[in-house]
């Protein structure tokens, strides 16, 4: 379980996160939702320690991540997989080498086992026949999926996805959502997903934290997200004509 207590983050004088308290539960898909610029990415970077919050604590099973010795931090991080909003694939390596990379660094598997694992991961994200290509030769959505394959290569205990299905067509987007929820349940992963995709919200949101302008406005799950009485959340969910019409029929 990952617990955030009173987390605030400043960039210079500008405060981006205000006193966030929330938790992300093991074996569940935990969503962070909010509009563009609300602070989702910053929050996720505080979670994995790429940014340090000026105030508050991030606890992994009651251990304060930002106070761990760096060797301990590295050990914890070897159990993390992260998909960046911009994919962040290594562009000097082929897709195959990208997915192989964490296996090379952290496992002592034989070449054959690693190969099997790479192909398995690429298959799970519906990417085949791209092993030899470089990231620059893939479309945005394919890069995203390759990044997901890389993140799950080592069977992480914590999986962080920053907008895993932005830029994907509805069908592939569903595939990714299914993949995320499947592996989360199968391996008991603590999964945290940033998204503003409503479809993901109502299909995989086992816990949902709604961020509005850096404040945690609402916490709940997919069953009560459509019926809350939080005005900002409703403005977010029912912003588009389609969802507005849906609401009238509810």
């Amino acid at each position, binding site marked *: 379980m990952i617990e955030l207590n009173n987390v605030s983050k400043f960039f210079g004088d500008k405060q981006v996160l205000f006193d966030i308290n929330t938790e992300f539960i093991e074996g569940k898909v935990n969503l962070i939702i909010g509009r563009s610029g609300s602070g989702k990415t910053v929050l996720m970077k505080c979670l994995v*320690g*790429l940014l340090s919050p000026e105030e508050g604590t991030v606890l992994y099973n009651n251990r304060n991540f930002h106070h761990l010795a760096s060797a301990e931090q*590295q050990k914890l*991080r070897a159990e*993390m997989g992260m998909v*960046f909003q*911009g994919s*962040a694939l*290594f562009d000097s390596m082929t897709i195959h080498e990208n997915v192989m990379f964490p296996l090379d660094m952290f496992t002592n598997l034989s070449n054959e086992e690693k190969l099997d694992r790479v192909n398995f991961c690429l298959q799970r994200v519906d990417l085949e026949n791209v092993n030899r290509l470089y990231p620059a030769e893939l479309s945005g959505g394919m890069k995203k999926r390759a990044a997901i394959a890389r993140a799950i290569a080592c069977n992480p205990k914590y999986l962080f996805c920053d907008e895993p299905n932005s830029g994907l067509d509805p069908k592939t987007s569903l595939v990714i959502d299914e993949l995320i929820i499947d592996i989360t349940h199968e391996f008991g992963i603590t999964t945290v997903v940033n998204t503003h995709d409503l479809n993901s919200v109502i299909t995989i949101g086992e816990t949902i934290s709604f961020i509005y302008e850096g404040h945690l406005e609402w916490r709940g799950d997919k069953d009560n997200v459509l019926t809350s009485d939080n005005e900002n959340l409703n403005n977010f969910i029912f912003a588009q004509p389609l969802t507005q019409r849906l609401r009238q029929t509810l």
Partner: protein
Amino acid sequence: MIEHFFITVGDYFIFLKKVFSKPDKWNIFFKKLIFEMDAMGVGSMLIVSIVSLAMGSVITMQTAMQIESSWIPSWTVGFVSRTSIVMELCPTIISLLLVGNLGSRITAEIGSMRVTEQIDALEVMGINPASYLVLPKIVASVIVNPVLIIFSIFFAIVGGYATIAMTGCVTTYDFMDGLTYCFRVYDVVYALVKTFFFAFVMSSVASFYGYKIDGGALELGKANTQGIVVSSFIILILNVLITQIML
């Protein structure tokens, strides 16, 4: 301004400390090291040899022109050319050339990895990005640059010899005589020691400026220029210091 200077120097040494920690996996380190040595060495060979040939030729012509006088022995041309080539021109000028060539490549490579969050991705995986990315580059450059300098000395002397052979201002016999006159191995050691330190400064400063980029691609160009200016400056100062100590 002064505060900024000390903060940067401090950051540089913190960065070095991060770079010089034990690689996570030695076999991967050696694989990267071989790759870097190949890229740096083979990639710079052509430009180094062309510049050295020209440099050797010019310094020989200039020396021959300055001391065209009947009471100076004619082997002086070879002697003076050799001394300037081995002790100063090749180690310093070629090192500065390599700053522009290899240093800027290092800054661009590491900087673009920073801008596209690839360094963050390494960090989240639990890898020390500074050691993983930068250590092979520094080790490769302190091995490769001295080798390049030896090639460069060779080509500069070939350039000088060819010039003498073509212009005939002194005989090639006299020139060879001067080249070998009073030859001291210590001069070469001095040149290589200089090159070693210059290579370290070049690769570490270039990596540092790429690594610490904060912002977008626009910063990349700025970091590149800063890296080149700062490492050239440090190299020139080191040149004076090392010469003072070793000679």
